């Protein structure tokens, strides 16, 4: 059914265009509300304050403080993806293989909440729990872990990574579970019947099958951690420059005139980095879907 060939399309381009007319509203909508804004940012990012073509915005963002912001954001994306992807994958695997349908459904919804709508509430939840007065800190202290014995604060790089884990791990569970689900029970049984140990199975079947999906999920997590705005904003981590926050400050107005279009070149920089991660992600997902169903 999925690859049904249209009897009408194909041969005649003229007819093909006629058939596309009902699709036009969606294309126009995307054009107006998505492509036009993106093209506008792109064009403006190459203009200086007197509206002349120039690369000045891009030379500006290659220097501090913007360079540092990019470095911070990329590091945050990588570190949070790295620390979330492995536990997330293991968790997804165990739930998917051993959990009942009910458990899977609840975990799925919970992951959905934390990964998609978490942002702001997540930040405040953490301020409450892991602030110096938080009861989580109190409980951890009771069992011998004193987070505040050193120089820990929630509003530091490590602090942000911990908060980010709370939407990154659930995100990993969401995107990686279908891959685990795709490993059919029969393959494992077949391997065992042919005399493979579980180590053999993992070396020759399990890991090669799951690795592309793992890599793809990692890329998605990187993009998500790199571009996240709400959580960082709500935590008001002013002491750590992150690209989305810097753009936010530029948009908020209280900026010198000589930086009018710097925000736009920062946005283009974000798009480029995000695309480097997301395009391979989408490509691998597309290929993996073939054997997952």
């Amino acid at each position: 059914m999925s690859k049904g060939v249209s009897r009408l399309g194909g041969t005649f381009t003229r007819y093909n265009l006629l058939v596309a007319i009902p699709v036009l509203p969606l294309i126009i909508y995307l054009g107006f509300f998505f492509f036009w804004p993106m093209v506008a940012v792109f064009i403006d990012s190459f203009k200086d304050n007197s509206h002349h073509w120039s690369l000045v915005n891009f030379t500006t963002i290659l220097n501090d403080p913007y360079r540092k912001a990019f470095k911070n954001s990329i590091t945050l994306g990588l570190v949070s993806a790295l620390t979330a992807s492995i536990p997330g994958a293991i968790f997804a695997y165990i739930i998917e293989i051993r959990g009942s349908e009910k458990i899977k459904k609840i975990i799925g919804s919970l992951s959905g909440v934390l990964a998609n709508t978490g942002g702001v509430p997540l930040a405040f939840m953490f301020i409450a729990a892991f602030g110096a007065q938080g009861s989580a800190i109190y409980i951890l202290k009771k069992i011998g872990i004193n987070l505040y014995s050193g120089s820990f604060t929630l509003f530091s790089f490590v602090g942000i990574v911990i908060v980010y884990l709370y939407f990154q791990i659930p995100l990993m569970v969401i995107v990686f579970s279908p891959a685990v689900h795709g490993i059919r029970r029969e393959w494992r049984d077949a391997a065992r019947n042919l005399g493979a140990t579980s180590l053999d199975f993992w070396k020759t079947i399990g890991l090669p099958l799951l690795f592309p999906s793992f890599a793809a999920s990692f890329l998605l997590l990187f993009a998500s951690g790199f571009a996240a705005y709400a959580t960082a904003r709500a935590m008001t981590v002013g002491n750590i420059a992150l690209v989305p926050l810097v753009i936010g400050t530029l948009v908020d107005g209280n900026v010198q005139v000589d930086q009018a279009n710097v925000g736009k070149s920062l946005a283009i920089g974000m798009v480029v980095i995000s695309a480097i991660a997301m395009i391979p992600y989408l490509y691998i997902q597309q290929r993996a879907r073939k054997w997952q169903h």
Partner: protein
Amino acid sequence: MATLKKNIILPITLIIGGIFAFLPFGSAAEFSFRSFSETGKLQHSLTSYRWIINQPELASHLFLSLKLALIAVLITLFLMVPTVAWLHLKAQTWRPLLEVLTILPLIIPVVALSIGAQAAFPDWLQSSEYELPLMYVILSMPFSFRILDTGMQAIPLKTITEAARGLGANWLKTIFFVIAPVIRGSVMGAFFLTFALSLGEFTLTSLLHWDTFPTWVTSVSQQNIIGAIALSIFSLTAAFALLLIISLFTSRARKLTKEAE
């Protein structure tokens, strides 16, 4: 021994996952009940929740967010259901292109899109709060398109349409009164997903300088942090309930899909 090991892995995983999820949540919930008595002693009460309910802005912001989310949902359904149906029925050759176009909003960081909206949109649009639902539709499009696409793949769309058309229904009637009810699982999935996404949207809303429920929570935190935490607990719980409903609908849709196959 082996079976014991097997039986113990799942509970241990669930316990670790439970601690991971509920230590901060429970701890924040406890925090949200804190208040200080007249003598300055720490106690637990509903003070913060009472404070929230007494905020005149609560109702107006909640109402605004619900209204904008509902508009986004309606635009999504009226735009996407006919288009996806048409792509399946008559314009299969255009489907791959639309698949690529609708996934693009997932690649572009929302921060960048917000900057773009600010740079491109005319003033009359930027001065209207309805620019938000128009943009929420874009943000949810990668998901809503795929949900509806999967739903349509699962049903004998051609037969149903031919039957409806043969009985004299026009295209609009066919799409809204015949096709949409048949794929109601997917339609509800797209509905709730767009709804949830719009309700919780913060980045675009705040960068375009609008004040909805999520952005209001952030401004509340500046005057009453415990109040903001109580609001967070409330919205996380509500979001969880909403998503549980979605999963109910989508799993029903999946069941229908399996039956159709």
